[in-house]
């Protein structure tokens, strides 16, 4: 096969075209011939493309199917099947064939060799095919067209039916559409309505949230209301939070009562919360009362205790309850009243146990066991009371929330506290009042026992000590619970009473002094000494129990003590007066009587001895200075009296008495030497006696004065008397030397005897200074 066509195609048609394509030997006129162009195109197209192959295959099948006998050729034909039987292709081919059916006959023939070479074994089929192809194809086409027509006819029919359906559908659709339109129209109002409704619903929902918020803000939940009002649930956390809420609601409600006047809601809410709150306060009140009644009993239910402070404690809830109720003072006050009542009876019972029975195990011993020791007895009772007060105060302070951090609790109980109404905090007032009431009932048993003890005191010193003790506690109580507190008052009264007992006792003792004065001694009577011994004790007790610290004396404090009639300088002056006066009386007035019955008895020395003794008693006490000054004045008076007496005594003893008496009494014109007692002879004798006296012991020592207890007074009085004697002698000498007194030998008269008319000599003898008088 050496064909110039590179591709071996067995299709006769294709081969034909191929041949023509590759035959440039044709005349050039043929080059522009459309047929040849087509052929070229066909030939150039080749048979490789699927469409061509398919066409060829269809053609071959067309024949293969009718010539089953010539198997070989069929095979060859089959293999070289030319154009696919697409009707279009065929048509096109047909028209081409028709166009040149005659002219191309030669060409077809000229292609013969090629075709014949292709069809290796030319059979009848091929020939027939070549002859009949057109017809066959036409036939085929015709039958196909018929079938097609038929089918299309059916389709047409069906389409008509379809058309009908569609038409009816369309009408229906139109109807439906119309209906829809009307429905839509109808729905529109509904939708509008729905929209409106939805809006309304949203609005309502918002309103509801607002309302809920409003309710939760302005009303209490049922739980809260229950917590507030129920009698079964004790106050607790919920209760207090509910209260806070109710209070807050009421505050917030002021908004609702705004400028446009009260709103209904506002009024309702205020009314409701008001009722709730009132119930809550009522509930707190009931709770407090019942708690107070339990707590107030301390541990007496459990254990008989004599400790005043046993188990008093305020729980946090209790404190909170008190804090709340402070905005309802009447209720709080009533509740505290209940507390006071319980505390009163508890404290009373505990106190009585402590007094009479002691602790359950016998320890501590009952206080009354020491009733024989009045100071200890009363001291123990008062200390017990004081401790009870401290415990009550602590309890009250914690109840009212005066915590550690509060300055007031830092102040030590017992240190000074100011109790002026209005000046201390409201809390302090509450506390003070309750503490006062709680311990107030103790006054009764305390008073009875103290009075009993005090009244049975006969020894003034013990009465005085008790009085001081009571006074000390009266002051302590005043500082701790205030002046107006019942206990302060009671203690004040008791201390006053015991001072009275004491004063009565010393007065009685003083009166007893005057009864027996039956000894001739010149020293103070033993009874007076005893009496003064008592005074000494009293004064040292007084000195040591003075409450004002010596390093911290405040005049203001003193003034206060004075007005309160307690222990003070006023007090001690009264003591001194009461004690000293009878002693003085003994010494002065009574001594007078004694003197009458015993003329030789040296009253003056005795009185001075007594007075100086009393002075000595008061000496160590600076606070007794006023009284001592009174005594000093008395002593001075008596000393002067005694000086006078002593002077006269000396003049008499020394023989100068008559001469001196003349000097003082004579009429101015009479010459001294003419008067009997001072005639030169008499005078000479007197001077002689004086001279003798001067050499005696009495010049330096007076036996009488030596009976004075205070030696200092002895010499003082003696000296004073001697001075006066010297003065008298000097005056005598002066008179004698005066010419008008008409002594003939004055200097001889005077110079005959010591001291020879020389005053300085006499002063020397007397041991006096030269200055004279």
């Amino acid at each position, binding site marked *: 096969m050496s064909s110039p066509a590179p591709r071996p195609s067995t299709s006769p048609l294709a081969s034909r075209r191929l041949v023509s394509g590759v035959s440039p030997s044709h005349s050039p006129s043929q080059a522009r011939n459309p047929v040849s162009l087509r052929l070229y195109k066909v030939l150039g197209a080749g048979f490789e493309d699927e469409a061509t192959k398919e066409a060829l295959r269809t053609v071959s099948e067309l024949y293969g199917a009718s010539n089953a006998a010539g198997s070989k050729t069929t095979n060859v034909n089959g293999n070289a099947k030319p154009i696919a039987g697409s009707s279009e292709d065929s048509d096109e081919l047909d028209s081409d064939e028709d166009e040149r059916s005659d002219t191309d006959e030669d060409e077809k023939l000229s292609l013969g060799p090629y075709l014949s070479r292709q069809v290796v074994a030319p059979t009848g089929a091929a020939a027939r095919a070549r002859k009949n192809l057109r017809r066959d194809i036409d036939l085929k086409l015709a039958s196909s067209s018929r079938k097609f027509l038929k089918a299309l006819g059916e389709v047409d029919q069906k389409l008509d039916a379809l058309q009908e359906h569609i038409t009816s559908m369309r009408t229906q659709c139109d109807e439906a559409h119309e209906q829809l339109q009307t429905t839509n129209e109808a729905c529109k109002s509904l939708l509008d309505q729905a929209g409106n409704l939805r809006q309304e619903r949203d609005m309502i929902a918002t309103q509801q949230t607002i309302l809920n918020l409003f309710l939760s803000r302005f009303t209490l939940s049922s739980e809260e209301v229950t917590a507030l009002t129920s009698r079964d649930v004790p106050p607790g956390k919920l209760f207090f939070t509910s209260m806070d809420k109710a209070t807050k609601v009421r505050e917030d409600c002021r908004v609702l009562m705004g400028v446009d006047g009260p709103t209904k809601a506002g009024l309702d809410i205020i009314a409701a919360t008001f009722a709730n709150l009132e119930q809550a306060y009522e509930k707190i009140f009931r709770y407090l009362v019942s708690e107070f009644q339990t707590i107030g009993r301390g541990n007496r239910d459990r254990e008989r205790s004599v*400790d005043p402070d046993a188990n008093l*404690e305020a*729980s*946090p809830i209790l404190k*909170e309850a008190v804090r709340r109720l402070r905005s309802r003072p009447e209720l709080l006050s009533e509740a505290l009243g209940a507390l006071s009542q319980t505390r009163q009876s508890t404290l009373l019972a505990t106190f009585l146990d402590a007094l009479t029975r002691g602790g359950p195990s016998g320890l501590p011993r009952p206080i009354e066991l020491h009733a024989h020791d009045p100071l200890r007895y009363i001291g123990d009772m008062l200390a017990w009371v004081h401790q009870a007060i401290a415990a009550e105060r602590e309890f009250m302070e914690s109840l009212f929330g005066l915590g550690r951090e509060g300055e007031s609790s830092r102040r030590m109980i*017992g240190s000074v506290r100011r109790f002026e109404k209005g000046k201390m905090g409201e809390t302090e007032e509450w506390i003070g009042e309750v503490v006062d009431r709680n311990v107030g009932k103790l006054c009764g048993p305390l008073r009875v026992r103290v009075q009993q003890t005090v009244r049975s005191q006969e020894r003034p010193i013990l009465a005085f*000590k008790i009085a001081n003790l009571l006074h*000390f506690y009266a002051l302590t109580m005043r500082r701790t619970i205030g002046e107006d507190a019942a206990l302060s008052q009671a203690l004040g009264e008791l201390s006053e009473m015991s001072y009275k007992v004491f004063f009565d006792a010393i007065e009685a003792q003083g009166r007893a002094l005057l009864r027996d004065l039956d000894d001739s001694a010149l020293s103070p009577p033993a009874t007076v000494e005893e009496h003064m011994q008592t005074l000494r004790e009293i004064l040292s007790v007084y000195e040591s129990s003075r409450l004002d*610290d010596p390093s911290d004396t405040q005049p203001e404090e003193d003034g206060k003590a004075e007005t309160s009639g307690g222990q003070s300088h006023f007090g001690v002056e009264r003591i001194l007066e009461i004690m000293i006066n009878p002693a003085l009386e003994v010494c002065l007035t009574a001594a007078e009587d004694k003197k009458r019955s015993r003329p030789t008895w040296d009253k003056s020395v005795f009185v001075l001895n007594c007075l100086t003794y009393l002075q000595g008693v008061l000496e160590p006490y600076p606070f007794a200075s006023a009284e001592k000054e009174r005594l000093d004045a008395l002593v001075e008076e008596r000393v002067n009296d005694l000086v006078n007496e002593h002077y006269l005594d000396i003049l008499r003893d020394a023989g100068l008495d008559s001469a001196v008496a003349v000097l003082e009494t004579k009429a101015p014109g009479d010459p001294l030497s003419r008067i009997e007692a001072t005639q030169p002879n008499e005078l000479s004798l007197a001077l002689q006696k004086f001279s003798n006296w001067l050499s005696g012991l009495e010049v330096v020592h007076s036996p009488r004065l030596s009976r004075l207890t205070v030696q200092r007074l002895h010499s003082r009085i003696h000296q004073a008397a001697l001075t006066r004697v010297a003065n008298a002698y000097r005056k005598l000498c002066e008179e004698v030397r005066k010419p008008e007194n008409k002594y003939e030998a004055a200097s001889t008269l005077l110079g005959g005897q010591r001291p020879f008319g020389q005053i300085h000599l006499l002063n020397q003898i007397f041991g006096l200074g030269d200055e004279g008088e």
Partner: protein
Amino acid sequence: MAFNDYDADATELLETYDFLMKYIIIGEAGTGKSCLLHQFTHNSFKDHSQHTIGVEFSSRTVKLGEKKIKLQLWDTAGQERFRSVTRSYYRGAAGAILVYDITNRQSFTNLGRWLADARALASPNLVVVLVGNKSDREDDREVEWAEASRWAAENDVHFLETSSLTGDNVEAPFLLCARSILLAIESGSLDPDKAGSGVSYGDRALRRVNSSSRLSFGSLSGRRRKGSSKLRLKDYVPGTANSKCC
């Protein structure tokens, strides 16, 4: 509004206690009793302290292990003239803080009298802590630590030295005393329920009694060693070499 105000759990620590103990503070005048107490309750030195008149009261709650103890403190006057008054307060005290001044020998030699008084009048189980105060004035010391320590041992009391001026060791006597009392309670030799013991149960302990019908001291025993070592540690802090616990 703070709910803690009445939240029992939150405030329990502050408000309630297991035991209430009564202490007396005794000793010669001027030994610094009031200053010591002031340091203990206020954490500061009491300037210009005057002689105490009679008796003054204060209180403080302390913690020892898990136990909260409220101390009732009765500061007594040391001056002789108040002896008859102050002695009435010894009645039923559980603890006594017996104070002398290390710079004043007289205040030490008189201790016997004070101790005898306290033993005679206070609770039979009285715990006494001897305190040598003014340890800051080492230069003026008249009573040696060893001598006081010996005296304490002979008289069966605890002993330590403090300074209420500097605050040195000031808490120790009070805690030591409380610890001894707690131990006495635990050992059964002291019964808080007995009046006159100077000790009573607080609300906290009572609640426990009521709920368990029996007091448990487990925590106390567990902490005993810890507590004491803590105390001792405190006593040995530098600068207070003289203040030891015995």
